[in-house]
Protein backbone atom coordinates (compact mmCIF):
# COMPACT_ATOMS: atom_id res chain seq x y z
CA UNK A 1 0.00 0.00 0.00
CA UNK A 2 1.56 3.24 -1.09
CA UNK A 3 0.14 5.94 1.09
CA UNK A 4 2.35 8.75 -0.17
CA UNK A 5 0.33 8.91 -3.36
CA UNK A 6 -2.97 9.25 -1.53
CA UNK A 7 -4.09 12.66 -2.67
CA UNK A 8 -7.21 12.77 -0.52
CA UNK A 9 -5.31 12.70 2.76
CA UNK A 10 -5.70 15.85 4.79
CA UNK A 11 -2.66 17.90 5.88
CA UNK A 12 -1.02 16.65 9.08
CA UNK A 13 -2.23 17.78 12.46
CA UNK A 14 0.02 20.62 13.62
CA UNK A 15 -0.20 19.69 17.31
CA UNK A 16 1.72 16.41 17.32
CA UNK A 17 4.16 16.37 14.49
CA UNK A 18 6.65 13.59 15.16
CA UNK A 19 7.27 11.72 11.90
CA UNK A 20 6.30 8.30 13.30
CA UNK A 21 2.90 9.49 14.47
CA UNK A 22 2.42 11.33 11.23
CA UNK A 23 2.74 8.11 9.29
CA UNK A 24 0.27 6.38 11.58
CA UNK A 25 -2.15 9.23 11.20
CA UNK A 26 -1.87 9.12 7.42
CA UNK A 27 -2.33 5.39 7.38
CA UNK A 28 -5.48 5.79 9.42
CA UNK A 29 -6.83 8.56 7.20
CA UNK A 30 -6.34 6.31 4.21
CA UNK A 31 -8.01 3.36 5.92
CA UNK A 32 -10.93 5.52 7.07
CA UNK A 33 -11.48 6.81 3.56
CA UNK A 34 -11.31 3.32 2.12
CA UNK A 35 -13.94 2.11 4.60
CA UNK A 36 -16.17 5.05 3.75
CA UNK A 37 -15.84 5.05 -0.04
CA UNK A 38 -18.51 2.44 -0.88
CA UNK A 39 -21.06 4.29 1.24
CA UNK A 40 -20.25 7.64 -0.36
CA UNK A 41 -20.45 6.08 -3.82
CA UNK A 42 -23.79 4.51 -2.94
CA UNK A 43 -25.21 7.74 -1.53
CA UNK A 44 -24.18 9.63 -4.64
CA UNK A 45 -25.61 7.04 -7.02
CA UNK A 46 -28.82 6.06 -5.24
CA UNK A 47 -29.78 9.33 -3.56
CA UNK A 48 -27.95 12.38 -4.95
CA UNK A 49 -28.22 11.40 -8.62
CA UNK A 50 -31.98 10.59 -8.55
CA UNK A 51 -32.78 13.76 -6.61
CA UNK A 52 -30.83 15.96 -9.01
CA UNK A 53 -32.22 14.12 -12.01
CA UNK A 54 -35.73 14.48 -10.64
CA UNK A 55 -35.28 18.25 -10.51
CA UNK A 56 -34.03 18.20 -14.10
CA UNK A 57 -36.96 16.07 -15.25
CA UNK A 58 -39.44 18.46 -13.70
CA UNK A 59 -38.28 21.17 -16.12
CA UNK A 60 -38.40 18.92 -19.17
CA UNK A 61 -41.09 18.15 -21.67
CA UNK A 62 -41.08 14.39 -21.46
CA UNK A 63 -42.94 11.82 -23.48
CA UNK A 64 -42.69 8.04 -23.68
CA UNK A 65 -40.23 8.52 -26.52
CA UNK A 66 -37.85 10.70 -24.52
CA UNK A 67 -37.24 8.07 -21.81
CA UNK A 68 -34.62 6.44 -23.98
CA UNK A 69 -32.77 9.73 -24.39
CA UNK A 70 -32.11 10.60 -20.76
CA UNK A 71 -32.87 14.26 -21.49
CA UNK A 72 -35.83 15.94 -23.13
CA UNK A 73 -36.60 19.45 -24.42
CA UNK A 74 -36.70 22.21 -21.82
CA UNK A 75 -40.23 22.94 -20.69
CA UNK A 76 -39.82 25.84 -18.34
CA UNK A 77 -42.38 25.82 -15.58
CA UNK A 78 -45.03 24.03 -17.62
CA UNK A 79 -44.97 20.90 -15.46
CA UNK A 80 -45.39 22.93 -12.28
CA UNK A 81 -48.18 24.96 -13.84
CA UNK A 82 -49.86 21.72 -14.74
CA UNK A 83 -49.78 20.20 -11.27
CA UNK A 84 -51.00 23.37 -9.59
CA UNK A 85 -53.94 23.59 -11.99
CA UNK A 86 -54.78 19.94 -12.39
CA UNK A 87 -57.69 19.27 -9.99
CA UNK A 88 -56.50 15.75 -9.13
CA UNK A 89 -52.96 16.88 -8.35
CA UNK A 90 -54.28 19.65 -6.13
CA UNK A 91 -56.66 17.24 -4.43
CA UNK A 92 -53.77 14.80 -3.92
CA UNK A 93 -51.77 17.53 -2.15
CA UNK A 94 -54.73 18.39 0.09
CA UNK A 95 -55.37 14.70 0.81
CA UNK A 96 -51.74 14.25 1.78
CA UNK A 97 -52.01 17.03 4.37
CA UNK A 98 -55.29 15.69 5.77
CA UNK A 99 -54.00 12.14 5.78
CA UNK A 100 -50.79 13.14 7.56
CA UNK A 101 -52.50 15.29 10.19
CA UNK A 102 -55.17 12.67 10.89
CA UNK A 103 -52.66 9.84 11.06
CA UNK A 104 -50.33 11.64 13.45
CA UNK A 105 -53.18 12.61 15.75
CA UNK A 106 -54.55 9.07 15.88
CA UNK A 107 -51.17 7.39 16.15
CA UNK A 108 -50.01 9.70 18.90
CA UNK A 109 -53.13 9.39 21.06
CA UNK A 110 -53.35 5.60 20.76
CA UNK A 111 -49.59 5.08 20.91
CA UNK A 112 -49.23 7.23 24.01
CA UNK A 113 -52.15 5.51 25.72
CA UNK A 114 -50.58 2.10 25.04
CA UNK A 115 -47.16 3.32 26.17
CA UNK A 116 -48.69 4.46 29.46
CA UNK A 117 -50.50 1.15 29.78
CA UNK A 118 -47.29 -0.81 29.26
CA UNK A 119 -45.43 1.19 31.86
CA UNK A 120 -47.77 -0.22 34.50
CA UNK A 121 -46.84 -3.66 35.79
CA UNK A 122 -49.53 -6.20 34.96
CA UNK A 123 -49.71 -9.91 34.14
CA UNK A 124 -48.78 -10.60 30.51
CA UNK A 125 -47.11 -7.25 29.97
CA UNK A 126 -43.95 -8.59 28.32
CA UNK A 127 -45.82 -10.76 25.84
CA UNK A 128 -48.22 -7.96 25.00
CA UNK A 129 -45.37 -5.54 24.43
CA UNK A 130 -43.57 -7.86 22.06
CA UNK A 131 -46.73 -8.55 20.03
CA UNK A 132 -47.46 -4.87 19.56
CA UNK A 133 -44.78 -4.60 16.88
CA UNK A 134 -46.42 -7.14 14.56
CA UNK A 135 -48.02 -4.55 12.23
CA UNK A 136 -44.61 -3.04 11.65
CA UNK A 137 -43.11 -6.21 10.28
CA UNK A 138 -45.64 -6.99 7.55
CA UNK A 139 -45.00 -5.95 3.97
CA UNK A 140 -47.04 -2.77 3.48
CA UNK A 141 -48.80 -4.07 0.41
CA UNK A 142 -50.07 -7.01 2.50
CA UNK A 143 -51.42 -4.61 5.10
CA UNK A 144 -53.23 -2.68 2.38
CA UNK A 145 -54.74 -5.87 0.99
CA UNK A 146 -55.83 -7.12 4.43
CA UNK A 147 -57.67 -3.87 5.08
CA UNK A 148 -59.26 -4.04 1.66
CA UNK A 149 -60.56 -7.47 2.63
CA UNK A 150 -61.84 -6.24 6.00
CA UNK A 151 -63.52 -3.13 4.60
CA UNK A 152 -65.44 -4.96 1.85
CA UNK A 153 -69.12 -4.06 1.83
CA UNK A 154 -70.20 -7.68 1.49
CA UNK A 155 -68.36 -10.20 3.60
CA UNK A 156 -65.97 -7.73 5.19
CA UNK A 157 -65.23 -8.15 8.88
CA UNK A 158 -65.93 -4.49 9.72
CA UNK A 159 -69.45 -4.47 8.30
CA UNK A 160 -70.08 -7.89 9.78
CA UNK A 161 -69.18 -6.54 13.22
CA UNK A 162 -71.14 -3.30 12.83
CA UNK A 163 -74.31 -5.05 11.69
CA UNK A 164 -74.10 -7.76 14.33
CA UNK A 165 -73.90 -5.23 17.16
CA UNK A 166 -76.65 -3.15 15.54
CA UNK A 167 -74.59 -0.08 14.59
CA UNK A 168 -75.37 -0.51 10.92
CA UNK A 169 -78.40 -1.97 9.18
CA UNK A 170 -77.12 -2.03 5.63
CA UNK A 171 -73.62 -2.88 4.47
CA UNK A 172 -71.59 0.33 4.46
CA UNK A 173 -69.87 1.02 1.14
CA UNK A 174 -66.48 1.80 2.71
CA UNK A 175 -64.47 1.42 -0.45
CA UNK A 176 -67.02 2.73 -2.95
CA UNK A 177 -68.00 5.94 -1.19
CA UNK A 178 -65.35 8.65 -1.80
CA UNK A 179 -65.71 10.14 1.70
CA UNK A 180 -65.65 6.84 3.52
CA UNK A 181 -62.73 5.52 1.47
CA UNK A 182 -60.54 8.26 2.87
CA UNK A 183 -61.35 7.05 6.37
CA UNK A 184 -60.28 3.53 5.45
CA UNK A 185 -56.79 4.61 4.45
CA UNK A 186 -56.59 6.73 7.58
CA UNK A 187 -57.62 3.87 9.86
CA UNK A 188 -55.22 1.47 8.16
CA UNK A 189 -52.34 3.90 8.48
CA UNK A 190 -53.06 4.62 12.13
CA UNK A 191 -53.07 0.87 12.76
CA UNK A 192 -49.74 0.68 11.00
CA UNK A 193 -48.09 3.53 12.93
CA UNK A 194 -49.27 2.78 16.46
CA UNK A 195 -46.52 0.23 17.23
CA UNK A 196 -43.81 2.72 16.36
CA UNK A 197 -45.32 5.43 18.58
CA UNK A 198 -45.95 2.95 21.38
CA UNK A 199 -42.42 1.62 21.35
CA UNK A 200 -40.64 4.96 21.25
CA UNK A 201 -42.88 6.62 23.83
CA UNK A 202 -42.70 3.56 26.05
CA UNK A 203 -38.91 3.61 26.10
CA UNK A 204 -39.03 7.34 26.89
CA UNK A 205 -41.40 6.71 29.80
CA UNK A 206 -38.96 4.12 31.15
CA UNK A 207 -36.31 6.82 31.33
CA UNK A 208 -38.38 9.13 33.55
CA UNK A 209 -36.67 8.92 36.96
CA UNK A 210 -38.74 7.16 39.61
CA UNK A 211 -37.81 9.83 42.18
CA UNK A 212 -39.45 12.52 40.08
CA UNK A 213 -42.68 10.56 39.83
CA UNK A 214 -42.61 9.82 43.56
CA UNK A 215 -41.94 13.44 44.43
CA UNK A 216 -44.96 14.51 42.40
CA UNK A 217 -47.05 11.85 44.13
CA UNK A 218 -45.96 13.04 47.57
CA UNK A 219 -46.75 16.62 46.61
CA UNK A 220 -50.29 15.45 46.03
CA UNK A 221 -50.46 15.66 42.25
CA UNK A 222 -53.27 13.65 40.70
CA UNK A 223 -52.66 11.25 37.81
CA UNK A 224 -53.62 13.80 35.16
CA UNK A 225 -51.46 16.50 36.75
CA UNK A 226 -48.52 14.13 37.03
CA UNK A 227 -48.86 13.27 33.37
CA UNK A 228 -49.30 16.82 32.12
CA UNK A 229 -46.92 18.71 34.41
CA UNK A 230 -44.24 16.17 35.17
CA UNK A 231 -44.04 13.33 32.67
CA UNK A 232 -44.85 15.08 29.39
CA UNK A 233 -42.30 17.88 29.89
CA UNK A 234 -39.60 15.32 30.62
CA UNK A 235 -40.26 13.19 27.57
CA UNK A 236 -41.06 16.13 25.29
CA UNK A 237 -37.87 15.74 23.21
CA UNK A 238 -38.82 12.15 22.39
CA UNK A 239 -42.38 13.19 21.58
CA UNK A 240 -40.98 15.73 19.13
CA UNK A 241 -38.72 13.21 17.43
CA UNK A 242 -41.51 10.65 17.27
CA UNK A 243 -43.96 13.08 15.68
CA UNK A 244 -41.29 14.22 13.25
CA UNK A 245 -40.46 10.68 12.17
CA UNK A 246 -44.16 9.88 12.03
CA UNK A 247 -44.63 12.83 9.70
CA UNK A 248 -41.81 11.67 7.48
CA UNK A 249 -43.18 8.11 7.30
CA UNK A 250 -46.70 9.29 6.59
CA UNK A 251 -45.98 11.64 3.69
CA UNK A 252 -44.19 8.70 2.04
CA UNK A 253 -47.07 6.22 2.32
CA UNK A 254 -47.66 4.50 -1.01
CA UNK A 255 -48.00 0.70 -0.88
CA UNK A 256 -50.74 0.81 1.74
CA UNK A 257 -52.99 3.00 -0.37
CA UNK A 258 -52.29 1.12 -3.60
CA UNK A 259 -53.20 -2.15 -1.89
CA UNK A 260 -56.26 -0.77 -0.11
CA UNK A 261 -57.99 1.59 -2.54
CA UNK A 262 -55.63 2.06 -5.46
CA UNK A 263 -56.23 5.80 -5.05
CA UNK A 264 -59.94 5.46 -5.80
CA UNK A 265 -62.87 5.68 -5.87
CA UNK A 266 -62.87 8.67 -8.22
CA UNK A 267 -59.36 9.62 -6.98
CA UNK A 268 -60.75 10.28 -3.50
CA UNK A 269 -57.76 8.64 -1.86
CA UNK A 270 -55.03 9.80 -4.21
CA UNK A 271 -52.05 11.05 -2.25
CA UNK A 272 -49.07 12.87 -3.75
CA UNK A 273 -47.17 9.58 -3.91
CA UNK A 274 -49.87 7.57 -5.65
CA UNK A 275 -50.82 10.32 -8.07
CA UNK A 276 -47.19 10.92 -8.93
CA UNK A 277 -46.91 7.20 -9.69
CA UNK A 278 -49.94 7.52 -11.96
CA UNK A 279 -48.51 10.50 -13.79
CA UNK A 280 -45.11 8.90 -14.32
CA UNK A 281 -45.85 5.25 -14.80
CA UNK A 282 -49.45 5.05 -16.03
CA UNK A 283 -49.56 7.92 -18.47
CA UNK A 284 -45.77 8.22 -18.86
CA UNK A 285 -45.70 11.91 -18.14
CA UNK A 286 -42.44 11.80 -16.21
CA UNK A 287 -41.99 15.56 -16.21
CA UNK A 288 -45.30 16.15 -14.43
CA UNK A 289 -44.63 13.25 -12.10
CA UNK A 290 -41.23 14.70 -11.26
CA UNK A 291 -42.75 18.12 -10.57
CA UNK A 292 -45.20 16.56 -8.14
CA UNK A 293 -42.34 14.57 -6.63
CA UNK A 294 -40.53 17.80 -5.93
CA UNK A 295 -43.53 19.17 -4.07
CA UNK A 296 -43.39 16.03 -1.94
CA UNK A 297 -39.65 16.29 -1.51
CA UNK A 298 -39.91 19.90 -0.33
CA UNK A 299 -42.67 18.88 2.07
CA UNK A 300 -40.55 16.06 3.47
CA UNK A 301 -37.32 18.03 3.59
CA UNK A 302 -38.90 20.98 5.41
CA UNK A 303 -38.40 18.80 8.44
CA UNK A 304 -34.78 18.04 7.82
CA UNK A 305 -33.26 21.06 9.64
CA UNK A 306 -35.49 20.25 12.60
CA UNK A 307 -34.53 16.60 12.34
CA UNK A 308 -30.83 17.41 12.23
CA UNK A 309 -31.27 19.71 15.21
CA UNK A 310 -32.98 16.97 17.19
CA UNK A 311 -30.32 14.44 16.13
CA UNK A 312 -27.45 16.75 17.01
CA UNK A 313 -26.27 14.18 19.53
CA UNK A 314 -25.34 11.92 16.64
CA UNK A 315 -23.63 14.72 14.80
CA UNK A 316 -21.65 16.03 17.73
CA UNK A 317 -20.08 12.65 18.32
CA UNK A 318 -18.33 13.16 15.06
CA UNK A 319 -15.29 11.13 15.95
CA UNK A 320 -14.42 8.38 18.32
CA UNK A 321 -10.78 9.45 18.36
CA UNK A 322 -8.76 6.52 17.14
CA UNK A 323 -5.76 8.67 16.20
Amino acid at each position, binding site marked *: MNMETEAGAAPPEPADGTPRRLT*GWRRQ*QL*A*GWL*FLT*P*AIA*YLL*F*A*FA*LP*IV*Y*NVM*LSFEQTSPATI*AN*FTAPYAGLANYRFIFHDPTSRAAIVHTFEFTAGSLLGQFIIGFALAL*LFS*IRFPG*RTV*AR*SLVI*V*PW*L*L*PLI*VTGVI*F*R*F*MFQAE*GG*AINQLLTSVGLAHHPIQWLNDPHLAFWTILVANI*WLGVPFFTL*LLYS*ALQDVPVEVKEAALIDGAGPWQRLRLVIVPIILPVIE*VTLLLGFVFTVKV*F*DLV*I*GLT*GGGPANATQLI*TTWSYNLS*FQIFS*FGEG*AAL*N*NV*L*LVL*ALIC*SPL*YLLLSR*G*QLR*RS*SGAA*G
Partner: protein
Amino acid sequence: MTRRQKARAKRWLCTLAAVAALVMILFPVYAIIVGSFESTETLFSGTFYWLPHAATLDNYRTVLQGASGNTQETVTGAQSGNVLTSLVVGLGTALLALAVAVPAAYALSKYRLRVTVVVVSSLLVAQIVPSIVLATSLFIVFHWLHLLNSYVGLVIADGTYAIPFAILVLRAFFFSLPNELMYAARVDGASELQTFRLIVIPLARSAVITVAVFAFLAGWGDFIFALTMLNGTGIEPITLGIYSYLGNFSTDWGAVMASGVFAMVPAGVMLVVAQRYIAAGLTAGSVKG
Protein backbone atom coordinates in the same frame (compact mmCIF):
# COMPACT_ATOMS: atom_id res chain seq x y z
CA MET B 1 -62.00 -3.69 49.17
CA THR B 2 -58.61 -3.57 50.80
CA ARG B 3 -55.79 -1.64 49.21
CA ARG B 4 -54.09 -4.83 48.12
CA GLN B 5 -57.22 -6.14 46.47
CA LYS B 6 -57.64 -2.81 44.76
CA ALA B 7 -54.10 -2.92 43.39
CA ARG B 8 -54.69 -6.45 42.14
CA ALA B 9 -57.94 -5.47 40.48
CA LYS B 10 -56.16 -2.59 38.82
CA ARG B 11 -53.49 -4.88 37.45
CA TRP B 12 -56.01 -7.28 35.97
CA LEU B 13 -57.88 -4.35 34.50
CA CYS B 14 -54.65 -3.40 32.74
CA THR B 15 -54.32 -6.92 31.41
CA LEU B 16 -57.85 -6.67 30.11
CA ALA B 17 -57.09 -3.36 28.39
CA ALA B 18 -53.93 -4.83 26.87
CA VAL B 19 -55.86 -7.84 25.59
CA ALA B 20 -58.43 -5.54 24.00
CA ALA B 21 -55.67 -3.52 22.34
CA LEU B 22 -53.93 -6.66 21.11
CA VAL B 23 -57.15 -8.01 19.63
CA MET B 24 -57.39 -4.87 17.52
CA ILE B 25 -53.72 -4.95 16.62
CA LEU B 26 -53.62 -8.63 15.72
CA PHE B 27 -57.08 -9.06 14.21
CA PRO B 28 -56.09 -8.11 10.65
CA VAL B 29 -53.35 -10.74 10.73
CA TYR B 30 -55.84 -13.27 12.08
CA ALA B 31 -58.35 -12.33 9.39
CA ILE B 32 -55.94 -12.99 6.54
CA ILE B 33 -54.87 -16.33 7.98
CA VAL B 34 -58.47 -17.47 8.44
CA GLY B 35 -59.36 -16.11 5.01
CA SER B 36 -56.54 -18.02 3.36
CA PHE B 37 -58.14 -21.31 4.41
CA GLU B 38 -61.65 -20.46 3.21
CA SER B 39 -63.08 -21.80 -0.02
CA THR B 40 -63.90 -19.45 -2.85
CA GLU B 41 -67.61 -20.01 -2.18
CA THR B 42 -67.19 -18.92 1.43
CA LEU B 43 -65.11 -15.89 0.52
CA PHE B 44 -67.73 -14.69 -1.93
CA SER B 45 -70.74 -15.67 0.16
CA GLY B 46 -71.11 -12.16 1.57
CA THR B 47 -70.52 -13.36 5.11
CA PHE B 48 -67.31 -13.14 7.07
CA TYR B 49 -66.79 -16.14 9.33
CA TRP B 50 -64.99 -15.27 12.55
CA LEU B 51 -63.81 -18.86 12.81
CA PRO B 52 -62.64 -21.02 9.90
CA HIS B 53 -65.65 -22.28 7.99
CA ALA B 54 -65.16 -25.42 5.91
CA ALA B 55 -61.36 -25.04 5.89
CA THR B 56 -59.54 -26.04 2.73
CA LEU B 57 -56.05 -25.86 1.31
CA ASP B 58 -57.29 -24.98 -2.19
CA ASN B 59 -55.96 -21.43 -2.08
CA TYR B 60 -52.50 -22.62 -1.19
CA ARG B 61 -52.69 -25.15 -3.99
CA THR B 62 -53.68 -22.42 -6.43
CA VAL B 63 -50.89 -20.20 -5.23
CA LEU B 64 -48.23 -22.89 -5.39
CA GLN B 65 -49.28 -24.55 -8.62
CA GLY B 66 -50.70 -21.67 -10.59
CA ALA B 67 -54.19 -20.44 -11.40
CA SER B 68 -56.86 -23.06 -11.86
CA GLY B 69 -57.72 -21.83 -15.31
CA ASN B 70 -61.03 -20.04 -14.87
CA THR B 71 -59.45 -16.59 -15.00
CA GLN B 72 -57.73 -14.85 -17.86
CA GLU B 73 -54.67 -14.19 -15.70
CA THR B 74 -51.61 -15.46 -17.43
CA VAL B 75 -48.89 -13.34 -15.86
CA THR B 76 -49.71 -14.48 -12.36
CA GLY B 77 -49.32 -18.17 -12.18
CA ALA B 78 -47.64 -19.87 -9.34
CA GLN B 79 -46.25 -17.86 -6.49
CA SER B 80 -43.61 -20.43 -5.52
CA GLY B 81 -41.15 -18.88 -7.95
CA ASN B 82 -42.03 -15.46 -6.60
CA VAL B 83 -41.24 -16.54 -3.07
CA LEU B 84 -37.80 -17.58 -4.25
CA THR B 85 -37.37 -14.27 -6.07
CA SER B 86 -38.28 -12.37 -2.91
CA LEU B 87 -35.81 -14.44 -0.90
CA VAL B 88 -33.05 -13.61 -3.35
CA VAL B 89 -33.96 -9.91 -3.30
CA GLY B 90 -34.14 -9.87 0.50
CA LEU B 91 -30.80 -11.62 0.92
CA GLY B 92 -29.23 -9.44 -1.76
CA THR B 93 -30.43 -6.32 0.03
CA ALA B 94 -29.08 -7.58 3.34
CA LEU B 95 -25.69 -8.39 1.79
CA LEU B 96 -25.44 -5.05 0.03
CA ALA B 97 -26.44 -3.21 3.19
CA LEU B 98 -23.82 -5.00 5.25
CA ALA B 99 -21.09 -4.61 2.67
CA VAL B 100 -21.67 -0.86 2.47
CA ALA B 101 -22.77 -0.07 6.00
CA VAL B 102 -20.42 -1.99 8.28
CA PRO B 103 -17.17 -0.42 7.04
CA ALA B 104 -18.81 2.99 6.66
CA ALA B 105 -20.20 2.95 10.19
CA TYR B 106 -16.77 1.95 11.49
CA ALA B 107 -15.11 4.78 9.61
CA LEU B 108 -17.70 7.27 10.83
CA SER B 109 -17.30 6.29 14.46
CA LYS B 110 -13.66 5.36 14.95
CA TYR B 111 -11.72 7.54 12.52
CA ARG B 112 -11.32 11.30 12.60
CA LEU B 113 -12.41 12.21 9.11
CA ARG B 114 -13.29 15.69 7.94
CA VAL B 115 -16.37 14.48 6.08
CA THR B 116 -17.96 12.74 9.05
CA VAL B 117 -20.45 15.49 9.89
CA VAL B 118 -21.40 15.94 6.25
CA VAL B 119 -21.90 12.23 5.66
CA VAL B 120 -23.89 11.67 8.86
CA SER B 121 -26.13 14.65 8.05
CA SER B 122 -26.64 13.29 4.53
CA LEU B 123 -27.62 9.92 5.97
CA LEU B 124 -30.18 11.51 8.26
CA VAL B 125 -31.65 13.47 5.36
CA ALA B 126 -31.52 10.42 3.05
CA GLN B 127 -33.88 8.59 5.41
CA ILE B 128 -36.46 11.31 4.77
CA VAL B 129 -36.46 11.11 0.96
CA PRO B 130 -39.67 9.45 -0.29
CA SER B 131 -39.14 6.31 -2.38
CA ILE B 132 -41.41 7.47 -5.20
CA VAL B 133 -39.00 10.35 -5.85
CA LEU B 134 -36.11 7.91 -6.17
CA ALA B 135 -38.17 5.41 -8.17
CA THR B 136 -39.17 7.91 -10.85
CA SER B 137 -35.59 8.94 -11.54
CA LEU B 138 -34.01 5.54 -11.03
CA PHE B 139 -36.43 4.07 -13.56
CA ILE B 140 -34.97 6.24 -16.29
CA VAL B 141 -31.39 5.93 -15.04
CA PHE B 142 -31.75 2.14 -14.88
CA HIS B 143 -33.38 2.06 -18.28
CA TRP B 144 -30.27 3.77 -19.53
CA LEU B 145 -27.92 1.42 -17.67
CA HIS B 146 -29.93 -1.69 -18.63
CA LEU B 147 -30.65 -2.43 -14.97
CA LEU B 148 -34.44 -2.63 -15.30
CA ASN B 149 -35.88 -6.12 -14.83
CA SER B 150 -32.74 -7.27 -13.08
CA TYR B 151 -31.92 -8.43 -9.59
CA VAL B 152 -28.95 -6.08 -9.44
CA GLY B 153 -31.06 -3.02 -10.17
CA LEU B 154 -33.78 -4.02 -7.74
CA VAL B 155 -31.31 -4.72 -4.94
CA ILE B 156 -29.55 -1.39 -5.47
CA ALA B 157 -32.91 0.38 -5.28
CA ASP B 158 -34.05 -1.60 -2.23
CA GLY B 159 -30.81 -0.68 -0.52
CA THR B 160 -32.18 2.86 -0.18
CA TYR B 161 -34.54 1.59 2.52
CA ALA B 162 -31.83 -0.11 4.50
CA ILE B 163 -28.44 1.50 4.05
CA PRO B 164 -28.79 4.92 5.75
CA PHE B 165 -30.59 3.27 8.66
CA ALA B 166 -27.97 0.50 8.83
CA ILE B 167 -25.05 2.91 8.94
CA LEU B 168 -26.62 5.01 11.70
CA VAL B 169 -27.52 1.99 13.85
CA LEU B 170 -24.10 0.38 13.45
CA ARG B 171 -22.37 3.67 14.10
CA ALA B 172 -24.22 4.07 17.39
CA PHE B 173 -23.11 0.56 18.26
CA PHE B 174 -19.44 1.12 17.34
CA PHE B 175 -19.30 4.07 19.71
CA SER B 176 -19.84 1.61 22.53
CA LEU B 177 -16.66 -0.31 21.63
CA PRO B 178 -13.71 1.01 23.64
CA ASN B 179 -10.97 2.64 21.57
CA GLU B 180 -8.39 0.70 23.57
CA LEU B 181 -9.30 -2.38 21.52
CA MET B 182 -8.13 -0.66 18.38
CA TYR B 183 -5.02 0.74 20.08
CA ALA B 184 -4.09 -2.70 21.36
CA ALA B 185 -4.49 -4.29 17.95
CA ARG B 186 -2.31 -1.62 16.38
CA VAL B 187 0.38 -2.00 19.00
CA ASP B 188 0.36 -5.72 18.25
CA GLY B 189 1.10 -4.87 14.64
CA ALA B 190 -2.31 -5.49 13.09
CA SER B 191 -3.11 -3.53 9.97
CA GLU B 192 -6.22 -1.35 9.89
CA LEU B 193 -8.01 -3.93 7.78
CA GLN B 194 -7.00 -6.76 10.11
CA THR B 195 -8.23 -4.80 13.11
CA PHE B 196 -11.54 -4.26 11.39
CA ARG B 197 -11.93 -7.84 10.20
CA LEU B 198 -10.61 -9.76 13.19
CA ILE B 199 -11.49 -7.53 16.16
CA VAL B 200 -14.31 -5.19 15.27
CA ILE B 201 -16.63 -7.33 13.14
CA PRO B 202 -16.78 -10.27 15.58
CA LEU B 203 -17.64 -7.87 18.42
CA ALA B 204 -20.35 -6.20 16.37
CA ARG B 205 -22.18 -9.45 15.66
CA SER B 206 -25.47 -8.58 17.35
CA ALA B 207 -25.71 -5.15 15.73
CA VAL B 208 -24.83 -6.70 12.36
CA ILE B 209 -27.64 -9.25 12.77
CA THR B 210 -30.13 -6.49 13.64
CA VAL B 211 -29.19 -4.57 10.53
CA ALA B 212 -29.26 -7.66 8.33
CA VAL B 213 -32.75 -8.60 9.58
CA PHE B 214 -34.06 -5.14 8.79
CA ALA B 215 -32.44 -5.01 5.39
CA PHE B 216 -33.83 -8.44 4.55
CA LEU B 217 -37.35 -7.43 5.55
CA ALA B 218 -37.02 -4.21 3.54
CA GLY B 219 -36.00 -6.12 0.41
CA TRP B 220 -38.59 -8.82 0.99
CA GLY B 221 -41.43 -6.39 1.56
CA ASP B 222 -40.50 -3.85 -1.09
CA PHE B 223 -43.33 -3.07 -3.45
CA ILE B 224 -42.70 0.36 -4.94
CA PHE B 225 -39.38 -0.44 -6.64
CA ALA B 226 -40.62 -3.83 -7.80
CA LEU B 227 -43.70 -2.14 -9.27
CA THR B 228 -41.69 0.48 -11.11
CA MET B 229 -38.51 -1.38 -12.08
CA LEU B 230 -39.96 -4.71 -13.19
CA ASN B 231 -42.46 -4.87 -15.99
CA GLY B 232 -44.16 -8.21 -15.69
CA THR B 233 -41.78 -10.34 -17.66
CA GLY B 234 -39.05 -12.24 -15.89
CA ILE B 235 -38.55 -11.72 -12.18
CA GLU B 236 -41.55 -11.03 -9.98
CA PRO B 237 -41.34 -10.87 -6.18
CA ILE B 238 -44.24 -11.99 -4.05
CA THR B 239 -45.42 -8.46 -3.24
CA LEU B 240 -45.95 -7.85 -6.94
CA GLY B 241 -47.61 -11.25 -7.26
CA ILE B 242 -50.17 -10.29 -4.63
CA TYR B 243 -50.84 -7.02 -6.39
CA SER B 244 -51.46 -8.76 -9.68
CA TYR B 245 -54.20 -10.87 -8.06
CA LEU B 246 -56.09 -7.69 -7.21
CA GLY B 247 -58.39 -7.03 -10.10
CA ASN B 248 -60.29 -3.81 -10.62
CA PHE B 249 -63.64 -5.54 -10.56
CA SER B 250 -63.00 -9.00 -9.25
CA THR B 251 -60.32 -10.00 -6.82
CA ASP B 252 -59.22 -13.59 -6.41
CA TRP B 253 -59.45 -13.31 -2.65
CA GLY B 254 -58.38 -16.86 -1.91
CA ALA B 255 -55.15 -16.46 -3.84
CA VAL B 256 -54.54 -13.00 -2.40
CA MET B 257 -54.98 -14.31 1.15
CA ALA B 258 -52.76 -17.34 0.69
CA SER B 259 -49.95 -15.40 -0.95
CA GLY B 260 -50.36 -12.71 1.70
CA VAL B 261 -49.74 -15.37 4.33
CA PHE B 262 -46.60 -16.47 2.48
CA ALA B 263 -45.45 -12.87 2.42
CA MET B 264 -45.90 -12.63 6.20
CA VAL B 265 -43.83 -15.72 6.98
CA PRO B 266 -40.39 -14.05 7.22
CA ALA B 267 -41.78 -11.39 9.54
CA GLY B 268 -43.23 -14.15 11.72
CA VAL B 269 -39.99 -16.09 11.76
CA MET B 270 -38.01 -12.96 12.60
CA LEU B 271 -40.42 -12.11 15.38
CA VAL B 272 -39.79 -15.47 17.02
CA VAL B 273 -36.10 -15.95 16.23
CA ALA B 274 -34.73 -12.44 16.27
CA GLN B 275 -37.13 -10.73 18.68
CA ARG B 276 -34.51 -9.00 20.77
CA TYR B 277 -32.67 -7.71 17.72
CA ILE B 278 -35.84 -6.28 16.25
CA ALA B 279 -36.86 -4.49 19.42
CA ALA B 280 -33.38 -3.03 19.64
CA GLY B 281 -33.34 -2.01 16.00
CA LEU B 282 -36.73 -0.30 16.04
CA THR B 283 -35.67 2.24 18.59
CA ALA B 284 -31.97 2.51 17.79
CA GLY B 285 -30.85 5.14 15.38
CA SER B 286 -34.00 7.17 15.68
CA VAL B 287 -33.83 8.58 19.17
CA LYS B 288 -30.71 7.56 20.93
CA GLY B 289 -27.57 9.30 19.83
